[in-house]
Structure formats: structure tokens, C-alpha cells
């Protein structure tokens, strides 16, 4: 039986979560393999919600699989695809099936995904979603009706330490903290000075919130350049690009794993923040190598 994430956040010195990306299709066997492989190696598996606006197996369904296989799921909910009725209904269903961690996100734009002509919803934003979960935690729905059977979610949010300009982003994070969150999962970070100053600002606003640094292994210089150019909120520094470009052909993934492990080790040893969230989309089965390299297995 997995330890509840709520408990882990209170008791564990260094928290490790990993992202589980649902498949495109109904064949869930690979997801089950990944869940089985990772469930006892990380503190929670965080399941994406139509990630990058690409239609996939649902976050809720994948969280159920995590639960059924003895893992601890974190349900990601974005505001892009559901209005306030649908989100509340999903939260009730999740809680009734033992899924009680939720990461509240705005969601990527429809324009970056594979259904570019879809109607974007954004009935709520991520701050309103955080408030909504707390209203439901108090036993009511958004308009004040009593719920027959309350919920008790552990609430998290995301943040982008490398935003440029940073100030408007920090105002938003402040509103998320005011709304009541137990953990923050950051967008991928590579620059530790940036991360340190971000953590310092957050600590100034809220001393208790747990901050998990987002780790996305970069598996090649070209991927790094692509990310810098195309993935908003991510910036891979030149020294890492240089290190990757000196890597022999075919060794990119191993190098990316090695760098990620090294980063996690440094975050832990220097106590830069409270833990990490590893996002290695499509290569979930290689996450144990990162954990091993970081001395976490």
C-alpha cells in the first residue's frame, strides 16, 4: 500500500515524483508496465491531462490504473477541456475512487496540440481551480450546494521560475499560494541560480509549501536548441548544450540521464528545494536509471 502523498509531503526530506504520460489509444499495457516499474521507486506518479493539447487516454483513467496497481497518483486537471461542471464531476469521481491529490493547471493552448480547431474552454483559470477544490473540500460545490459525501484533496500547482519577465508570474504564484496549495511543481529547470532565487521568493510568501524542481532530461544538443526555441518557459543553458554536443552519437539518452541524475543529486545535497518532479516523456522506463545515478534507489 502506497504512502499517501499528503503524508509524504509532511514527513519526507526529499520528495521524488515522476510524470506518467497516458498513451494515445486504449492499449494500456505499456502504462501498466511503467506504473509497475515506478510505483515503489517514487513518492507519486503525476498523470498528465491531454498533455500539450494532444488527445490521449484520460488522466483520470490513468490515475485509476496507478491506484489499482498500488501506486500513489496525482491527478492533473487543466482548465482547457472542461467547464466548471465537468471539472467538479471529475473531482467527485476521482475522490470516490481514492484519488486525492490534484495538480491544478491552466493547460497548454489548443494551438500547440493535434486538435487545433477545437473550442478552448478555460471557463476557469488555475487560481480559480485551486479555490474550487478548497470549496469542494469544505463540503460544497462552486455555487454553495451541499455535497452528499465531502472530498479532501491535497492541492498542488505549477510555476515557471525562468519566466521572462518574472514579476507577473510571481504575482500569479502568490495568488496560488493564497488559494492554498501544499506543493509547487516547477517547469523544467536547468539554472540553479534561477531556481535558488525563485525558492527564496516563494519561501518569503509561504514557508510551508513544498517545492519540487521540474527535471526534464535533455538527450541531445539539437533537442536543447529546439526546446529553447519552441518550448515556452524552458531555457537550457549553453554549458549543458556544449556538454551534449560533445557526446558521441547514440549516447545522447545516457548523457541526458547522467546530467539529470547529477542535477538531482546537487539539488538534494545543497538542499536547494524539497524535491524533484521528473518528466521523461516517452522514456518512463529509463527513470530508474536517473534515480540510481542520483543515489535515490
Amino acid at each position, binding site marked *: 500500500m502506497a504512502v499517501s502523498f499528503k503524508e509524504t509531503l509532511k514527513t519526507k526530506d526529499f520528495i521524488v515524483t515522476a510524470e506518467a504520460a497516458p498513451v494515445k489509444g486504449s492499449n494500456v499495457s505499456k502504462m501498466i508496465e511503467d506504473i509497475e516499474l515506478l510505483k515503489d521507486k517514487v513518492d507519486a506518479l503525476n498523470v498528465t491531462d491531454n498533455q500539450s493539447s494532444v488527445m490521449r487516454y484520460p488522466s483520470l483513467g490513468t490515475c485509476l490504473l496507478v491506484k489499482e496497481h498500488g501506486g500513489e497518483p496525482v491527478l492533473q486537471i487543466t482548465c482547457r477541456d472542461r467547464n466548471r461542471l465537468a471539472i467538479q464531476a471529475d473531482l467527485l469521481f476521482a475522490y470516490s475512487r481514492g484519488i486525492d491529490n490534484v495538480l491544478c493547471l491552466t493547460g497548454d493552448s489548443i494551438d500547440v496540440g493535434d486538435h487545433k480547431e477545437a473550442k478552448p474552454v478555460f471557463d476557469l483559470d488555475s487560481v480559480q481551480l485551486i479555490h474550487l477544490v478548497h470549496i469542494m473540500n469544505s463540503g460544497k460545490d462552486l455555487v454553495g450546494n451541499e455535497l452528499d459525501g465531502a472530498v479532501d484533496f491535497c492541492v498542488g500547482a505549477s510555476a515557471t521560475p525562468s519566466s521572462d519577465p518574472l514579476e*507577473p508570474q510571481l*504575482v500569479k504564484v502568490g495568488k496560488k499560494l493564497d488559494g492554498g496549495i501544499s506543493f509547487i511543481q516547477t517547469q523544467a529547470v536547468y539554472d540553479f541560480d534561477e531556481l535558488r532565487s525563485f525558492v527564496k521568493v516563494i519561501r518569503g510568501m509561504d514557508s510551508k509549501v513544498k517545492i519540487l524542481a521540474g527535471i526534464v532530461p535533455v538527450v541531445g544538443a539539437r533537442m536543447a536548441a529546439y526546446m529553447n526555441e519552441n518550448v515556452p518557459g524552458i531555457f537550457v543553458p549553453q554549458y549543458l548544450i556544449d556538454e551534449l554536443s560533445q557526446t558521441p552519437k547514440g549516447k545522447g539518452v545516457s548523457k541526458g540521464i547522467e546530467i539529470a541524475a547529477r542535477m538531482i543529486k546537487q539539488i538534494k545535497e545543497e538542499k536547494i528545494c524539497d524535491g524533484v518532479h521528473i518528466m521523461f516523456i516517452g522514456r518512463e522506463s529509463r527513470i530508474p536509471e536517473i534515480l540510481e545515478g542520483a543515489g535515490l534507489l
Partner: protein
Amino acid sequence: MIVAERKPMEEIKQMVAPYKKLLLVGCGTCVTVCWAGGEKEVGILASQLRLARQAEGKEISIIEATVERQCEKEMVSELRDKVKQVEAVLSLACGAGVQTMAGMFEETPVFPALNTTFVGMPEQEGIWTEMCGLCGDCFLDRTGGICPMVRCAKGLLNGPCGGTRRGGKCEVDPEKDCAWVLIYRRLEKQGRLDLMKKYYPPKNFRAVKRPGKIQAVKA
């Protein structure tokens, strides 16, 4: 003002393909200003249609007209005699204008030659930008006069998403500014950043009961 663009020529040609006698009607207000459906554009489209039919070896007779405001019944009614002479009408107005025409002359098919895109303003010569989403619950007092409902790609009310690009550009389009960065800068300039730090609850998306209808009281 209402901003519109002309539909692709192929689409227009297909809509009016079965008809030999057409009335092309422009509108002298918004769509004249945004170069989409004024007297000049009516003339251009009429010439293009005549040439296209000629190239196909088919005949067409086109009457050209432009009214001051195609969204007003009184102004549209002056076209009655012209409508009687044709098989179909091609309207170069916004959606409201097309529907006013279609409602006034129910016996005759009325087709839209434009795509109505948004309510906006001319930013510079030839460039119009969206400014208002017609939500019926104006929020501009809290955002330094910058509407996050339409100028933020996601219509967020409590600050920027995590996708802001370097230099404060939008996740969706690096050519466009992040509305929340603009709002932050304007409120900062006015010493009113406390407004951005406030929590705004979910918006009332039913402030205008669709379809919208207002009974105004005369002053």
C-alpha cells in the same frame, strides 16, 4: 468597430455559382474602415466575379450598391427595388448586416462575402487588433484598460499562464504580447499593482443571455 475579412474567392464563387443575376451590397461603416466591405471592395469583388464567369464562358449580371449601415432595417429597405431585379444577394457586411438583409428580403437568398472576425481597433495602417469579447461583464477597471478575456489567448483572469515567451510574448504567437505582462506594466506605471494581486472568482459567462437582446431605456 467590427472587423471582418473577405472570404476566399473560391468559396464566394461556389456560393453564388447557381445564380446569373446578383446584387453585391457593401456597408459604409465598420467594414469600410477595415477595407473589407466598402464601396471600393464591392467594386473589386464585382469585377473579379465578372472576370471569373467570363473565363468559364458563363454569363453574370451584377448590380453594385452600398448602404450606410447594413445592420439597420431602414437603410437596407432602400435596396428593395434592386433586390427584386436579382436572384441572390452577396453581402459584404458583418454577420449582423448579412442577417438584416436576409431578414428584410426573405424570398431572396443572401450570402456572406465576409468572415466577421472581432471587435477591435486599427493599430496601424492596415492592421486591426481585437479589443473586446462582448462578454457583457466588463473587467477593464481591474486590468488597467487591457482586456484579458480577448487579449490573453486563454482569457485568464488571475495572471499569466506558464507559457509566456521570453520578452513577455504569448505562448500561442511570439508576434503577440502576453496580455498579462502588458497589464502588469500598466498597473505598475499607475501604482495600482495591488489590483493584480487580488483574487478574481470565476467569471459570469451568462452576463449576456444568448441570444443577446437588450431593452434600453431612452435618456
